[in-house]
């Protein structure tokens, strides 16, 4: 995704077991913070199809 121009940070991977509730909260928090700091998405936005 980043290779084709999505800003770095927007795509994140994590592995959380169903038992790791604190890690889940932590990761969600971090992800939302990172995304918020990146601001609105510039690319890869599908609105009404651009057709004739």
């Amino acid at each position, binding site marked *: 995704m980043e290779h*084709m*121009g999505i800003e770095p940070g927007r795509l994140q991977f994590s592995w959380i077991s169903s038992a790791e509730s604190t890690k889940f909260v932590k990761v969600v928090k971090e992800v939302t913070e990172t995304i918020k700091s990146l601001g609105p998405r510039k690319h890869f936005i599908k609105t009404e199809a651009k*057709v004739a």
Partner: protein
Amino acid sequence: MLEYTEKIREISQKLLKDSKVDMVIGFRKGTVPMMNEPTFIRNANEVGQLIWDSNCGINLANYLTGRKEKIGIVAKGCDSRNIVVHLVENKVNRDNLHIIGVPCKGMIDRRKIGVIYGEEILNVVEDGEKIVVEGDGDEKVYDKKDVLQENCAICIHRNPVIYDELVADLVEEQKDVDRYEDVRKIESMPPDEKWAYFEGLLKNCIRCYACRNACPLCYCPTCFVDESRPQWVGKSIDPVDTRTFHFLRAYHCAGRCTDCGACERVCPVGINVRAFTKKLEKDVKELYDWEIGLDPNVRPPLDVYKTQDPEDFIK
């Protein structure tokens, strides 16, 4: 190339005569310059149709999917690697195949020659390492190495990796090839530039799916773009949908793509489709030190879990 053609015919004739195979899949001479047509021969008397030259770029492994007959197949390096992929993915049974291996010296790039010649091309003759182009302009002679398909120019597996017979002695493999110069160039771009690069790349795409359909990996009974429940991707030529098709297709080829170049070769509007697949090929090479299609007995890295699998990208 004449000796290749003769040997292919000779082997095919014998296979068909001895009823070792029901059909031989190979190429026949095309009707326009620099094009050959994949074909099948069932009758030993018709092997004269089979030919070999530097216009056999279509990946014949694509014609094996789902076939149940005993098949003789003419296979250059990349075709043979895709046969291996088919074997690994259980798409074809090794016992049903008789692989006629062709040590390959690269396929010529029809588009590239068209551009540098500039005028309409009427005939192209191969003379060893020279390509003679006849057309509306003057006759021109090119070095074959200058007009190779891009993937052939950086190919490091020209020899078939799996075969029952060879049509000629193995060729020397290319050494010290920088396979990923183009990928690195994109990697070094800032995000917006990357975005713009791919936007420019796809601007002419008409979503004819030639790239997908020429690809031996793309054998899904229903491709995700044809799915309506759920509809993963829109069907118009909206640029976001077009891009989604291309990059998702590339993902589906991750760790499976042999860089045979069929996708790029068949594109009617000249898109360098490999710009998508090669990044993943490079990643798989760097992360797992893996090249697909070399050994039918090893499972690919994205198929198996190993404790030492890299996981830096997982937080």
